C-alpha cells in the first residue's frame, strides 16, 4: 500500500502522492548481440506512483538493462512500457520530460565545473532563465556542493561526483526517478547523505525505481522490492512481508535462497 504523504520540505515537489501506476513494463524481451541468453526474458514490472521500488539482482541479472530500456537508451526486442500512463514508444519526448535518470557510470563532464554541468543538462531539459538558475542552485545545495560549484568535476572525490551525478538527474524535478546503483564505490558518509536525499525525494512524492547490490540499503529505503534473476522478476513485495513469508532474517539471506550461490557473471 502506498501511503499519502503531504510534502513538508521546500524542495519542488509533485505534491501529494497519487494513486495509480507510474511504470508498467509488460513481457519485455531483450537479447544482446552475441549473447547466449536474453538479458531480459518475459520481464514484467508494475511500480505505483510515489513508490520507492528496489530492483535487486546479482551482476548480469538484467538490472541495468531494465533501467536502460525504461529510460529509452535502447528499445526492447518485444514487450511494452508505459510511464505515467503514456506509451513509451509513442510519447517518448513527453515521457523524457517527466523522468530523471541517474546512471551507474558517472554521467558528468570532468572538464566542466559542477555548475557548468548542471547548467548544460538543465538547458537540455528545456529550463532557462531564473528557473534554470534556481534549479541549479537547489541541486547544488541538495548535493552539498554549493561552495565548490566552480571547481572542475575532475578535482572532486568519488562521493562528490556521485552526489552531483544524482543531482543532475533531479534538475527538472522529475516525477519518476530511475537510479542505477547510485551508491556504488563511495564512502559511508557520502552513502548516508545520498540515502537521506533519496528518502527526502520519496517523501516529496517522487516515484523512485532503484537498483542495488546492497540488501541492507534496499531494506532501509524501499517500500517494495523485486528480485531479478536471469532477466526475470522472481519475487516481489514489501521487504517486511517477504521476510515474514519466507522466514528469513534479512534480505541477503532471502536473496541467496532465491537466486542460489552460483556466480551469475562467471
Amino acid at each position: 500500500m502506498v501511503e499519502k504523504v503531504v510534502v513538508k520540505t521546500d524542495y519542488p515537489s509533485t505534491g501529494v502522492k497519487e494513486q495509480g501506476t507510474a511504470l508498467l513494463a509488460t513481457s519485455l524481451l531483450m537479447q544482446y548481440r552475441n549473447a547466449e541468453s536474453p538479458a531480459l526474458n518475459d520481464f514484467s514490472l508494475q511500480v505505483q506512483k510515489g513508490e520507492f521500488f528496489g530492483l535487486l539482482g546479482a551482476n548480469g541479472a538484467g538490472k541495468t538493462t531494465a533501467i536502460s530500456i525504461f529510460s529509452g537508451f535502447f528499445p526492447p526486442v518485444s514487450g511494452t512500457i508505459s510511464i505515467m500512463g503514456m506509451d513509451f514508444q509513442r510519447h517518448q519526448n513527453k515521457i523524457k520530460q517527466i523522468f530523471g535518470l541517474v546512471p551507474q557510470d558517472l554521467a558528468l563532464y570532468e572538464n566542466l565545473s559542477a555548475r557548468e554541468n548542471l547548467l548544460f543538462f538543465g538547458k537540455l531539459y528545456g529550463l532557462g532563465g531564473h528557473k534554470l538558475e534556481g534549479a541549479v542552485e537547489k541541486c547544488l545545495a541538495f548535493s552539498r556542493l554549493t561552495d565548490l560549484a566552480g571547481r572542475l568535476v575532475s578535482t572532486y572525490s568519488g562521493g562528490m561526483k556521485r552526489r552531483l551525478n544524482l543531482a543532475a538527474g533531479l534538475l527538472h524535478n522529475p516525477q519518476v526517478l530511475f537510479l542505477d546503483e547510485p551508491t556504488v564505490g563511495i564512502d559511508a558518509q557520502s552513502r548516508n547523505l545520498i540515502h537521506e536525499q533519496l528518502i527526502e525525494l520519496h517523501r516529496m512524492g517522487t516515484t523512485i525505481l532503484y537498483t542495488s547490490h546492497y540488501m541492507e540499503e534496499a531494506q532501509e529505503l524501499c517500500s517494495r522490492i523485486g528480485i531479478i534473476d536471469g532477466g526475470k522478476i522472481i519475487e516481489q513485495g514489501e521487504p517486511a512481508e517477504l521476510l515474514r513469508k519466507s522466514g528469513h532474517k534479512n534480505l541477503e539471506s532471502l536473496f541467496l535462497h532465491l537466486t542460489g550461490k552460483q556466480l551469475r557473471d562467471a
Partner: protein
Amino acid sequence: MLNILTVTVKELLLLKRDKAGLLVLFIMPALLVMVITLVQENVMELTGQKKTKMLLLDLDTGSLGSLLHKQLELGHIEIIVWDGQRKSSDLQAAITRGDYQAGLIIPAGSYEQFQRAAVLFPNQQTVDDEILAAQVPVQLYFDPGIMPGLRSGLTAQVQVSLQTIGMGAKIENLGKELSGRFAALEVLTQFSTPPLTELTARLKEPLLSLESQPDDSGKTGNRSYSPVQQNVPAWALFGMFFTAIPIAGGILQERKSGIWIRLTSLPVSHLTFFSGKVLAYICVCFCQFLLIGLIGSYMFPYLALPAFTLSQNIGAVLLVILFSSLAACGLGIFLGMACNTYEQASTLGSTLVVAAAAIGGVMVPVYAMPHIMQRLSVVSPLNWGLTAFQDLLVRGLSFPAIWADLGKLALFFLLTILLSWKLTRARL
C-alpha cells in the same frame, strides 16, 4: 536551435580546457605550414623554379668569362665569380663539398683559342688546321647530390650560352669578311650594303620567338604559383581535418561514460548533439584558417617567404572553409561512432587524415605524383578542398569553378552523418 547552441558552447568550453587538443588543432598546422613552406622554397631553387647559384672560375685573361657570365645570368642562374687567384682544385673541392650545385672553369688561354676558332675564312699562312679544329674546353662540374633534372637543365643552359657566344663571334667574323669582300667588288658597290655593325646585329636577331602566357596576377589580385599559396590552404585543410580526432575522442568519452545514456534520456535528439558538435568545430576550423592565413600573410615575409594573399572572392573562400569543415566534422563523428576506444579513433583518424592529405596533394602537388596516385587523389576530401582553394587562390577563378568540389565535400559530410546515425541506432 537553443539546444544546439548549448551543446556548441559546452564543446568549446571543453576544448578550451583541453591544452593537448588545442596544441594539435592550432600549433601543429601552424608549425607544419612554416616548416614545409620553408623546405619547399628551397626545393623550388633546386628544381630550377628559382635562381640556382653557379660558381665561375675564370683562369683566362680575355673577355670569354664576362661574355659567359652575361649569357648565363639571362637565364635563372646566379653566377658567383672567382678570380684567377683560385685554382681549379679549389672549385672542384667546393662543389664536392656541396657548397655550390655547379661550377664552371674557363681555362687560361681560352679566349685566344676561342678567337682563332671563330675565324671562318682562315689564312693558310697564319692559322693551321689543328688550331681550327680545337674547341675551347670549358669545364663544368656538378655536386654529386644534385637532382638529375636540375643537372641536365644547367648543362643545357651552359651549352646554349656557349653556342650563342660562339655563333655571335662567327657572325661577327662573317660580317667583317663579307664587308671586306663586297668593298673589293666594284659592281656590288652599286648596291647599298648595310654597315658592318647593322649587318651583325641583324644576323644575330632570332627568327623565331617564344611567347609565354601573360601573368594576370596583378589583374586578378592572385599570386602565381608559390609554395606559400600552395601550403597555406593545404596545411590549413590538414589542420581542419585533424579536428576529426578530438571530435571522435569527445564522442567516445561520452559513449564510454554514463553521459551517453544520460544524453539519450534527455528530451533532445542525437542529431541535436551532433549538430552542436559540428557547429563548435566549424568555428574551430575557421579559427584555424584565420590563424594560418595570418601567419602566411604577416609572418612569412619575415622568414624571407612571399606573403600569402587571399582571393578577392572572400565569399567563395569562406564557403570552401565551411564545406571542408563539414567534411572534417562528419569524419570525426563517424570515427566516434565506429570506433570503440579513443586509441582506435586516434590511430585510425590520424592515419586516414595523413593518407588523405598525401594522396590529396597537401604534401606533394597532385601533378607531381605517379599516374596511379593522381587517379587515386580524386577520392580524397582534402583534394576536393585543396582544388577549390587553388582555383580561388592561385588560378583566380570564382564560384562556378568550385561548385563540384563543394558538392563532393557536402556529400561526404552527409554520407558520414548518415553512417553515424545508422551506427547510433545500431548501438542503442
